[in-house]
């Protein structure tokens, strides 16, 4: 007999309809949550997204290519996630497991819908089925391994990593989804009794079935299957609905930011005089003065803390953590969910203090190390521009700026002495200074 299994096998018609109804509800919750985040991002300065969609297809493709490349290499290829030992390994396992399970579930649904059109269109059988089942079992194990590694790491609470109560919920849900998935498979094998390769192509389910379900009658197995199937389904649907409301939002904001973030270190956007005349402001005083992409980047952050570990100011006990700057700005952005008058979504003072901003050396270690291309240096520089425009810079830095203005050099030495070093060339070497 051709190895296969019936989609929704052992699940009554009524249950199927309830499942699809709940799936629609979960997707709606997901869409509503995402819409709310997008509405926050859109309150930033426009980044010309319309221009990405204009022109001939050739022009569009050339504009999309760099972003698409970064999604492929740095998102799917996880290039920027690597290099942090256990955490990178755990993320790689969880990510690859997740992506393959997502692809597998999608293919299953495609097969199910195709089968509704014509039973000849079923492809979930035979060799395809064997490869499918074994692959999904393997990646299911990788997924669970990744979850366990992350759990181990979170229990040890590395100081640079952010901790929210919901993080435990997310990890527990992931573990429960993986475990119930395998239990459903084991119970299904129990009542379906596939033979030969039809059974061995699902090694984890077969192992559960032969080890733990030995001696269960078919009725018990079928009832257990329905119960576990529902638990698994509800967990998955709940997880989908939760994506925009938890750290899982980085599934969306991360790749989007990879695609849209300006990709070059050391480049600052110029302030144009015409803009200043039109808006009457320089830099960022209200969170909405950031660009839409910068606001999006605040949601891409998962508080992994790599930026904080790389920051020389943080390492020398100055009041600056790039991660905290990003999170504090994100807090202000979230306040925009209810209308805030222009200029009143302030980001200075109690949110990001001046001493925090002046502690930055613009060394760009944080920006380089961020897996999702959040650019704390770019955020800090926009905030500094605002402070300077307000005239709040004081101390030695203000003196250096005044000297640059008056003498065209930060030492404040006479411009006429700029060439004085040449005379030193022919003289005997000066004693060491």
């Amino acid at each position, binding site marked *: 007999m051709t190895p296969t299994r019936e989609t929704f096998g052992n699940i009554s018609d009524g249950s199927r309809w309830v499942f699809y109804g709940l799936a629609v509800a979960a997707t709606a919750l997901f869409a509503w949550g995402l819409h709310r985040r997008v509405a926050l991002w859109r309150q930033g300065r426009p980044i010309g997204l319309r221009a990405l969609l204009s022109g001939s297809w050739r022009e569009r493709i050339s504009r999309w290519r760099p972003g698409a490349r970064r999604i492929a290499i740095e998102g799917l290829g996880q290039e920027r996630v690597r290099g942090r030992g256990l955490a990178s390994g755990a993320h790689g396992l969880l990510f690859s497991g997740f992506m393959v399970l997502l692809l597998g579930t999608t293919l299953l649904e495609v097969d199910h819908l195709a089968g509704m059109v014509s039973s000849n269109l079923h492809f979930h059988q035979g060799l395809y089925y064997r490869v499918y089942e074994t692959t999904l079992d393997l990646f299911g194990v990788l997924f669970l391994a990744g979850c366990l590694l992350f759990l181990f790491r979170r229990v040890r609470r590395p100081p640079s990593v952010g901790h929210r109560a919901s993080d435990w919920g997310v990890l527990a849900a992931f573990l429960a989804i993986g475990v119930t998935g395998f239990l459903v498979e084991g119970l299904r094998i129990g009542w379906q009794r596939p033979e030969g390769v039809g059974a061995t192509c699902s090694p984890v389910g077969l192992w559960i079935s032969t080890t733990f379900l030995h001696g269960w009658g078919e009725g018990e197995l079928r009832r257990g299957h329905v119960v576990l199937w529902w638990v698994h389904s509800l967990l998955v649907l709940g997880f989908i609905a939760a994506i925009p409301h938890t750290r899982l939002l980085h599934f969306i904001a991360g790749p989007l930011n990879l695609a849209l973030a300006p990709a*070059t*270190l*050391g*480049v*600052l956007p*110029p*302030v144009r005089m015409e803009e200043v005349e039109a808006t009457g402001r*320089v*830099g960022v005083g209200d969170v909405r003065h950031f660009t839409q992409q910068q606001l999006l980047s605040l949601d891409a952050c998962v508080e992994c803390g790599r930026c904080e570990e*790389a920051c*020389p*100011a943080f*390492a*020398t*006990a*100055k009041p600056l953590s790039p991660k905290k700057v990003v999170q504090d700005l994100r807090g202000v952005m979230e306040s925009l969910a209810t209308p805030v008058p222009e200029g009143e979504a302030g980001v200075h003072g109690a949110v990001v203090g001046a001493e925090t901003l*002046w502690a*930055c*050396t*613009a*060394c*760009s*270690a944080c920006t*380089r190390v961020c897996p999702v291309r959040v650019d704390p240096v770019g955020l800090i*520089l926009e*905030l*500094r*521009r*605002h*402070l*300077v*425009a307000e005239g709040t*810079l004081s*101390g*030695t*830095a203000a*003196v*250096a*700026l005044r000297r*640059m*203005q008056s003498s*065209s*050099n*930060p*030492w404040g*030495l006479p*411009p*006429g*002495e*700029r*060439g*004085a*070093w*040449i005379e*030193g*060339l*022919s003289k005997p*070497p*000066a004693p060491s*200074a």
Partner: protein
Amino acid sequence: MNPTPDSPPQWKAPTVRENPGFEILYWVGCAGAYDRRAQRVTRAMVKLLNTAGVNFAVLAGEEKCTGESARRLGDEFLFQELAQANIETLARHKVRKIVAHCPHCVNAFLKDYPQFGGAYEVLHHTQLLAGLVEQGRLKVPAEGSRQEPLPITYHDPCYLARVNGIHQAPRDLLALAAPGALREMGRCRDKTSCCGAGGGRMWMEETPAQRVSTQRAGEALATGAKTVAVGCPFCLTMMTDGVAASGAEVQVKDVAELLAESLGL
């Protein structure tokens, strides 16, 4: 122009007016012009450029600060004012190619000035020098004639290595100046860690307990190096302070100085 035993060398640094047919502009920068310690790097560079027979010129007073520090401090308009003036000066002298020994100047020319119409071929001095060595225009004496070099470490400047990806040229030069002596720090190349001077911090006070330079110098000293090589005048100041703070008998020098020494200049 090579030194001979009979006549002391006459090092020349012609201005753009004295040598209007120059091929490359040596942008000395504020530190190289005004800072006593960094002036020695400038002089080492002039000796090397003379020795290699490079057709260069300097501005010697017509230039202003690139404004890099001003821009990173957040004073965009001061930066734009300085940049406009420099771009006009560079255009007046038809400058196409620039070498600078300050990575902040290099970054300003590479990343900041093109936004305002100033586009040049820009080299960090270590890149130019590595090219001259490769072309055989700078010949380092054979290894055997010199004593075993003491261990050296190289501190990558952020705006050179991380921001602009230039980290091999200085190492190539150090391999010539002190063969086999390089001891890398854990955080090097694009993973380098700041000396503390970037983003305008060069001009701010720091309490001794919070000095970034002390921490980075500690990392450099942990390699056992007797020389800390740098490629930036700000790093030169910071690492010198950091080494001094730990009381170590270690010299801090620019890569160009070490190369000039190995050439007997």
